[in-house]
């Protein structure tokens, strides 16, 4: 079975860090991780224009670090992501300290230069990675279960309908909706665990 969306997503970062990175992977990376970095800048109270500049700079540095520290598929993916993020932050900091000395707005910048800000950045990227894993797992599970089971899960777990509402909509017994929901949820957890291991080993 063809799972382009799913597989690509899982290997997205690996593709960026591996030897076969390409433009589409970079674009996908920007689409997924760009907002996280931008969000990070805003969270640390940078003004809009500054935030975009900083976010852009950090992203480009992430890409540069990805080239420097190639991902080795035999090692922890998460560890690699963190290393890259930390290195990009340090690189950015290094550059920043060289050019913005003496300029105003130092409080905000100092905050951004704290270890807490760095860990927040790493954390945000990692959270996005988790989401990526989950999305991937969901895409794969969806292909594995029958459409009705999936709908029961999606309506209850994702769209927030109650079991009874979903049952009515799908013409199922309420109990079957919960059975379906529970089953998919379990498969999803297992899949995420497997993916995470795959990514790490």
């Amino acid at each position: 079975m063809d799972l382009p969306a799913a597989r690509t997503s899982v290997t997205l970062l690996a593709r960026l860090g591996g030897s076969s990175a390409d433009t589409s992977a970079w674009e996908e990376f920007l689409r997924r991780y760009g907002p996280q970095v931008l969000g990070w800048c805003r969270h640390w109270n940078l003004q809009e224009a500054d935030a975009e500049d900083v976010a852009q700079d950090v992203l480009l540095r992430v890409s540069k670090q990805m080239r420097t520290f190639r991902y080795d598929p035999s090692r922890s993916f998460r560890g690699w992501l963190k290393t890259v993020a930390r290195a990009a932050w340090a690189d950015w900091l290094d550059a920043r300290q060289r050019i913005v000395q003496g300029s105003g707005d130092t409080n905000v910048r100092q905050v951004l230069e704290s270890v807490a800000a760095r860990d927040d950045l790493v954390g945000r990227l990692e959270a996005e990675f988790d989401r990526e894993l989950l999305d991937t797992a969901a895409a794969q599970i969806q292909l594995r279960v029958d459409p009705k089971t999936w709908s029961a899960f999606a309506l209850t777990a994702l769209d927030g309908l109650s079991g009874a509402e979903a049952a009515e909509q799908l013409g199922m017994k309420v109990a079957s909706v919960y059975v379906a929901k529970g089953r998919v949820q379990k498969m999803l957890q297992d899949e995420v665990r497997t993916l995470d291991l795959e990514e790490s080993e």
Partner: protein
Amino acid sequence: MAECPTLDQLRLLLESALHGSEQESVEVHIDSCAACQQSLERLTAAPPRVKQAFITPNAVTFIARIQAMSPGVDVGPRPATSPAPPPDVPGYDIESELGRGGMGVVYLARHRRLNRLVALKMLTEGGLTDRSVRTRFLIEAETIAQLRHPHVVQVYEFGEHAGRPYLAMEYVDGGNLAERLSQGHRFTPVEAAELVVWMADAVAAAHAKGIIHRDLKPSNILLATADSKTLPKVADFGIARVSQSEITATGELLGTPSYMAPEQADGRTREVGTATDVYGLGAMLYELLSGHPPFHGETVVETLQQVVHTTPRAPRSIARAVPRDLDTICLKCLEKEPKKRYPTADALAADLRAYLDGRTITARPARSWERAVRLANRNPVPFVALLLIAATAVGAFVWVNEARREEASARKGEELARRTAETNEREAIKARNLVEQGAARTAFDQAMSLCETGNVASGLTEFARVLELAERAADLDLAAVVRRNISAWEAHRPREVRGFDPPSAARPVTATLYADEGRLLVTGSRRGGPVRVWPVTGTLQDGRPFLELAPPDAKLPGVVALFATSSTGVYAVYESGHVVEWEPRTGTVIRQDLAFDLPCPIRSAGMTQPTRSVSGKLLCVGYEDGTFRIWDLDRRELFAGPDESPILTHFYRGPKKKQRFTGLPAKDDPQPPPGPVNAIDFGDSGNMLLTAGETEGVILYGLPVPKTGRVPDPILTDGKVDPRIPYHQFDLGGAVFQMLVSPDRQFFLAGGATAVSLWTIHERDRPVWVHNHPDQITALAFSPDGRLCASADRGGTIRCWDVLSGAFQAQLHFTEPVLSLRFPPTGTNTILLGSQNGSSVLWQLPLRSELEARPAEPAPIGPGVVIRIGSNTEQAVLAGFEPLRRGEWVATSHRLLFWPADGSPRFGIRPNEGETIARDSVSVSPDGKVALISVLGRKTFSVCDLTPAKSTVQRIPTAGVTRTGFLSETQFFTVSEEPQPGTDQLTGQFRLWELTRDKGVTQSAAWPLSAVTCVAPHPDAKSVLVGRVGDDRVVFLDAANGKEVGWGFQHTGVTAVAVDPGRRWVATAGQGQSVRVWPLTPDRTGRPLDRAPLHGDRVNALAFGTGPSAGVLATASSDGTARFWDAKTGYPLGPPLRHPEAVLSVAFDVSGERVITGCRNGYAKLWPAPKAVTP
């Protein structure tokens, strides 16, 4: 069911584990019971799902903006494995897909310039990743490209684009013979003979080149129509195996082995040769004549059986119209024994021609008794009996008759047999050579890859083997390449630079330290003996150390560890418990304390970084009994533990990982006797302590800041860990023998029984990386800049790693266990080893090779400026050699500097403040007397006389000069580009100038030229090679009038060109990091540089060597390396020249011995050029 089901019942329901009836009633109940639905809701509540990313309003436009401005970011731009959809091959428009298999794919494509349809073959991703398939594709494509025959599908071009080799072949639109036959088309015997003659000619041409098709069958014969005649074109020579028919390896090929020769069907591959192709031709002749393949069983197995064992029916017995001679020829081709067939396709063609011309054919019909023998072989007993009967009856007649015929043709037969034997042998030798060359080339790749990954010693051994193979296969080109590589890599073989301590079994060197800013080396031994101080520079007098420092307690003289003080001093920690501060330059004791008690031997010691510790200067030691102490060097007292005693224990009292699952509280765990503390060190800014042992892994303890002189208890009275105090156990999964904290104190290396791992003190759950080691780790080291680290093991293997990425950098072997490792304070290309055998030796690491580096700009634009993609903001560094003063020159965007080697003072040319030198506008004449330079925005360019007598600058009025270059010592050119008034277009001019002593500079020609991407002069000084934006080739233009002269070279997106001063080669660099080398003749077949290691980013500059480096091509790339290649074969030569940033220029000096590179970080570097090596 009135009553609600229990929670357990609901759980079982969810697991679908309820019994049928029970399940039904529960389900019915749930449908109408809100309470149960709520219970189910709780039971199936999702674990806190990761929140969806909150997309901030401007994020979308923000991303679009980055994408727009970072097309060149190229995150590891290797589109090699980009997914299948029609690839973009320079110069071709892909029209449709003709066929696809596991390894290869064929497209119908149109050659843009020639407007000609071609069949474009490429490897699929599957084929690309299989190294052997790829290698074979390239070797065979190369061989077949040389094959020009009217009846062979012609290869027009082969090359590589974006990492994928491709092959452009003649497109034949008449379908193939298999299709024609299946449509029921019948051929007359003469038509059949003609078709097969042509095919045989084609196959013979291939045989002459040592190529055996091995897979001749109707589907591999393409048909073209010319003058109402059907002309066959043999396709899929060899490439068949990697492209189309491998598809059918499981299908068609096994489905119809009807055309397979018996030796193939029987797996006797050693017998496969020219006669195999003769069989294939015969099988097709058979089908053309009779309408059926020679064998066709119900099943594949049956067909194979028939191929091997059954004598084919004579075509004449199927189709009566088949002439006897063709019948004979056909059956001779189909003989089971290769020896009995026509030996070559030539012989078959000759006999078919004889038939077509009405002459006598050489083949004789199998004689009646021969057939009988064949039958007898199959069914021995009855047929031998029959034969005997027949022979007795007509024996006399038969024998006489046979004897006569034999006699008549005896001489001819012998002659034929002799020729056959010779041909076969020649073919065999050729074929063997081809195979051996292939093997040698594959072995070359392996050797190169070993060297590239830091295993230089093994790579060199492998290279020696490749040399042997290449010589045996008479591959002289490869042999020459291997010799050069051996010579170039030999310089990178790890080697001893100098020794300090001489071997002495009584004093194994366990501690080493550089002191006095690297001028002194201090060594010590745990087994006693004095601490020795060695001068690092200068010669040793009689091999004696500079000083020997006596131990404070002669009874316990062993040194545990040595540390640098904040000034020039050295702290030595002795096994007697003494801490002595030495002044190593004079040998005087600055301070001495008996700091530590001795409940048992001291095993390890660590110290805070004297300059960057918030806790002040602290020293700690670990003991054999698993305890440790902390000594405050400032206050000269021991730290107190939680219980006021200074005895601290290497044991983790927090919640143990394993016990988390059993739920046992940690305090109930009986405390086992802790093992020895193998290593101890301070982390972060001195506010953390790390201990490592054979048990308990690595434990991290927080120390109070500012220091209080005591270690707080991380365990609160309620048994829980105090969240305010860092306290952690790193799970290393085994005994830790060595541990070392990095210079920035954020990482630590841990060495176990078979592995070394890097951890950070922040991320505590898993290591940054882990690598195996052949033996137990005995020593660790970080380079002072924190970028490299090294590990040594008991077997004497030392490995160097890049700290952050964990990339393997280099490896060396020492004969004895290495007990101490130390990088010198400056530079990371050497490492000091202290060994079990008492010696301390400085080794060269195979990491760097540049001759020297000279700063061209004191403050390079590097990381630190917001990235804006565009060449104008880049710090261009061009560099070259100038022969006048035998020196070098380097140009950045702000100055041009000369380093004369003849002793005259350094000098430079710089524009006014704020002005920028146009990139590529700097040239120095071949005699070094004149430099050209152009400043952006000025209306003139400058011609600088560099001869010391004059040193004048002439400004020549020509605006917008962006490029300059010398054709000869008296002729140069400029390319200027200016905006056209009223439009946003640029118009350009190429100008040719003459330099004369009396008249100065005069313009001799001018013609329009714009959108230039690169330009290089031809050594004949008459033309220039020019690449232009949007042009998919580079062309020679007459310097005097801009007319195209001769020919051009096909290459899309050309970024750099170079012409070999020896006039043999031209090199072009283009799209997708591709580099091609072309002979400097009107021959359009260029050779792509396709051997690994390819560049990972744009190629910015090319240069050819002269003299000893003639035939060497240098490439400079944005991937931060410059590389050398053998122009003739396209093989890499020697190690890459590594730079911290993009390499922008490369040039050879006139002697051909040195190379200079310019790097974007503002540095130029000098390197030795790879030398030619004579066998």
